[in-house]
């Protein structure tokens, strides 16, 4: 279904590539022109993507704005783009954060400006492709494609340990990707074995879940891929490195968009395709998520480095998203999607905050700061609101997602809800300590005294984040109502396959020679 009769998704995905093409013809010395052209391209992209919001039909779970062209028909591979209530806001988040992030690079990136903007535009294409693909093969292509610009962004414009950090980032996530590739292939062949159809269409793959002993291994493989990306405890240690070494905009995109690919992957693959395993292994995911909430917050609390604090706070926040998702009820899942969006905005904005001070002082250590509120009052106000949204104060967006995730968790099991609620105390501790260390107390450091308050550009991009934070906090329904039908459909699907099996049964089945059968299928499949 495409209500616009215009391939809008293909347009916003490949429009940045046109930008890349145009940039090739601009002299590298003309940095202002490069920045403005990139900005205009991203802004247009964002404005066009808002059409998705306005024309989105909230009454159907079917993919919308679909572009479907056969690609490799003999293998059942299609160029298939489309969005539904699960991905709509992640697409919008991506286009929004790219505009905000690009604005922040005007002063932050002084070196190789042309290359930087080209890479940023490529990254945008990759990220949008991931959220829009409804073909597993295409999804994988974009998933890998997006890694490369990010790798370059950290590796070229990053901090002193950038090589180590990029290595870690790449190997870690690539390990996950390999598992995912194997799992996609196995799902593809097994699906054919049971239904006689070769297809990579995600909705079709989900329509006939595999026998559950096979689901176990496939779920696990996808779990590893996505858990690394989220990142869930204990797969998170690449994140602090990558964030600390990345340039500001890299962190914004990494936290704001790339991590969401992990949670989104759970929504698109693990939940619909392996629904029985969701019921069996959901408890493991929830326990890991609860650990992540506390662990991330407690480790964040003791960080001497501002960016590391924000990085660990992501681990904590996404724990809420995972709990909400695996609570398997509508409040939890809507809360989970809201948390993805809100975390993207709030944490993205937190990284922008760090970046603004880093540009001025070239340090991220708390011990160097203090008393900034008196020196940069406008910055302090905006930063305060952003901190509050991260803390989940009612009236900001953070509260909406947190309370929905908590309600969801609580409905699933009272103790999940109570434990997750306890995390709010720790998040209050570390966020307020962060704010105090930077903004309060008289400054002891003369270097802080002459700092300039935000200029117009900085005020604009911080301010726009604050506006969105308050808008979603006060009136979240435009978002929730568009998610609703898709979420219900997914839940209905997952909950209709709730027969559980124990892991023991899986082993027994495998021992009976099923594994041999899988091998035989995959060998003789083509």
């Amino acid at each position, binding site marked *: 279904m495409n209500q616009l009769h215009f391939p809008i998704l293909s347009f916003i995905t490949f429009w940045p590539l046109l930008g890349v093409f145009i940039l090739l013809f601009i002299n590298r010395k003309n940095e202002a022109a490069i920045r403005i052209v990139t900005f205009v391209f991203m802004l247009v992209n964002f404005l066009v993507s808002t059409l998705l919001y306005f024309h989105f039909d909230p009454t159907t779970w079917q993919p919308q704005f679909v572009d479907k062209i056969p690609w490799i028909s003999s293998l059942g591979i299609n160029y298939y783009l489309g969005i539904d209530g699960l991905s709509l806001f992640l697409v919008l988040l991506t286009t929004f954060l790219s505009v905000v992030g690009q604005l922040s690079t005007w002063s932050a990136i002084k070196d190789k400006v042309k290359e930087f903007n080209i890479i940023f535009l490529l990254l945008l294409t990759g990220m949008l492709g991931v959220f829009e693909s409804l073909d597993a093969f295409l999804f994988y292509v974009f998933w890998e494609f997006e890694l490369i610009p990010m790798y370059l962004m950290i590796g070229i414009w990053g901090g002193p340990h950038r090589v180590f950090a990029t290595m*870690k980032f790449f*190997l*870690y996530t690539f390990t996950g990707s390999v598992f995912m590739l194997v799992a996609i292939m196995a799902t593809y062949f097994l699906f054919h074995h049971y239904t006689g159809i070769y297809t990579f269409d995600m909705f079709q793959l989900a329509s006939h879940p595999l026998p559950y002993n096979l689901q176990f291994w496939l779920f696990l493989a996808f779990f590893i891929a996505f858990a690394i990306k989220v990142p869930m405890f*204990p797969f*998170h*240690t*690449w994140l602090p490195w990558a964030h600390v070494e990345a340039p500001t905009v890299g962190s914004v995109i990494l936290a704001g968009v790339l991590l969401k690919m992990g949670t989104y992957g759970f929504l698109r693959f693990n939940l619909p395709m392996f629904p029985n395993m969701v019921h069996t292994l959901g408890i493991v995911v929830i326990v890991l998520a609860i650990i992540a909430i506390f*662990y991330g917050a*407690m*480790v964040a*609390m*003791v*960080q001497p480095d501002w960016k590391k604090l924000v990085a660990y706070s992501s681990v904590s926040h996404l724990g809420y998203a995972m709990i909400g998702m695996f609570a398997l*009820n*509508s*409040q939890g899942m*809507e*809360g989970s999607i809201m948390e993805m969006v809100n975390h993207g905005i709030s944490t993205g904005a937190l990284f922008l905050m760090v970046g603004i001070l880093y540009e001025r002082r070239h340090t991220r250590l708390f011990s160097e700061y203090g*008393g900034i*509120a*008196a020196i940069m009052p406008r910055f302090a*106000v905006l930063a*305060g609101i952003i901190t*509050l949204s991260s803390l989940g*104060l*009612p*009236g900001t967006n953070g*509260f*909406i997602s947190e*309370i*929905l995730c*908590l*309600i969801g968790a*609580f*409905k699933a099991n*009272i103790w999940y*809800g*109570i434990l997750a*609620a*306890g995390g*709010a*105390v720790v998040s*209050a*501790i570390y966020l*307020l*300590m962060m704010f*105090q260390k930077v*903004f*309060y*107390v*008289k400054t002891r450091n003369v270097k802080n005294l002459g700092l300039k308050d935000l200029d117009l550009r900085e005020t604009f991009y911080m301010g726009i984040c604050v506006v969105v934070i308050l808008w979603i906090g*006060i*009136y*979240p*329904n435009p978002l*929730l*109502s568009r998610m*609703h039908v898709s979420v*219900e459909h997914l839940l209905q699907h997952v909950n209709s396959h709730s027969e559980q099996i124990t892991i023991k049964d899986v082993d027994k089945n495998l021992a009976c020679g099923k594994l041999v059968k899988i091998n035989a299928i995959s060998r003789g499949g083509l």
Partner: protein
Amino acid sequence: MEWLLLLCVLSPAVGCIINGLFGRWTYRAAGVIGSTFLGISFALAVPLIIYAIQGHVVDYSYYHWIVSGKFTVPFGLRLDSLSAMMLGVVTFVSFMIHIYAIGYMGGHKGYARFFTYLNLFVFAMLLLCMGNNYLTMFIGWEGVGFCSYILIGYYYEKKTAADAGRKAFVTTRIGDIGFIVGVLFIILYFGSVKFTDVFAQAHMISPAIITIITLALFLGAIGKSAQFPLYVWLPDAMEGPTPVSALIHAATMVTAGVYMVARSAPLYALSPTGSLVVASVGAFTALFAATMALTHFDLKRILAYSTISQIGYMMIGVGVGAYWTGMFHLMTHAFFKALLFLSAGAVMHAMHGVLDMRLMGGLRHKMPQVCIVMIIASLAIAGIPPLSGFFSKDVILSEALMLGHPIIWLVGVVTAFMTAFYMFRMIFFTFFGESRVPEGMHPHEAPSVMLVPLWVLAVGSIVIGGILGVKVHGHISIEHFISLTSPNAFPIVHKYSETLLIIISIIAGVLGIAVAWLAYIPKGAFSFRSFVVRTFHPLYRCFFNLWWVDEIYNFLFCRPFWHVSERFLWKAVDVKVIDAGVDDVGRVAGLTGRAVRILQTGFINNYACWVSAGALIICGWYLLKIM
């Protein structure tokens, strides 16, 4: 009416936005602007309160705030007798304090910022009181907590102030977890957070669940209303400017817990256990906090402990099931405690920020009007008739006894004695005796912009109790009014003479004042005091060191939490186990590569050597097998 109500609640928010966005330009006018919007709010509140007194109820949902699945949270307000009373107290007292603050904060850095925060606070407080469901209430609940945080840390360049603000926020947030869990239970069992829906179904839910809900909600009240064991933030909150202490940490925000319990009366009424916990915690806190107020020398901290103690009284009132008594005391307390704080602020203003009573003395000659209003307020809190505190405190105690809680009554009477003592100890220390004011300091009478609100509040402290608390035609007007929404929960047994109880509580108050007089005014007072201190030395040390509660918390919770996070989770688990483990996986891959590399020398003779070695081994294997 519903739009009038919305306007009344939003008016302070408008003031906040104006001062917040244009503070640089409104600078001098900020105080007037802030007060004006509060004045508008108060003016709008008057017809609303009259409407409520006539027995009408406004319950209106303006829009759907959160809709998810079958679960809906409206943004709605509710005006009934309970919230009308809070509306009156909050708008009136805030209005007075805003006017006072124009004088008090004049010339301070960040004058506009102060009024921005103060207006925001009133807005949040009104949301808390007027919300028609638990989550709208929670917006206000967390909102006032946040405003309290920024206002305590108003002098943020002082580390103690910034720390105190954070302590307040985090401590109350521990309580808020309880509140949220309570709300989650309500959502799970009632499917709605609207007061009307919840209370209508309350009797259909099992009592055990109701008890859990009431206890969880009460944990929120313990945090917000500074009850034991989460009261520790309130004394530190005195780092904030005095009008803030008066408004937030005495008159309005800290009593939110009492209001919440009274608001949830239909739930508490169904849970004797929950109610008993409320009353017991209240009684214990009342006594415990009073002991800490006995020996302090810091003017504002004495008042802080006194506030904790008085909220304990209110908790007794709502805990024993006589909700109207708690609300009544909340109202009178708002007047006389705000008055006490503002007078203390006037003293502090005159003394250039000094709060230590040992540096005061004899101030009655220098600032007679402040002295008089402060004595009025102290008489009121001591429970001397016919001032307001007498009426409200007396009904709490007599209701507690009649509802069958003699021990709580006794604790209340003892606390009443201690209250009278420490309040007049403070009065005598500050305003009487010889002057101990340091050289070069010239205390002076407060300016009239500060004196006017003081006198208004003083008049309120005198008459409000008498107007609302006297029995006319067989019923007390405030009881009748509040009982429209929160009826008495448990049956009353009239087995004690009311007159006798009144006489006992008057005696407790007078005795307290008399002992204070004996200990601080006559010639031999000093030797009398040192005799008492020597006799009760261990007890005195406990009082004086505030029972070492802060130190105990630090030792038991704060430091272990920090050390576990830093030394164990971060430096051990995260860096040494997980991250190092991941690196080791990488290293193993690297080492394997290096090991295999030995084979790849590039020399053809080496390869030939390996090939022949392999051939030999295989041949040998077959030979062995054959043989």
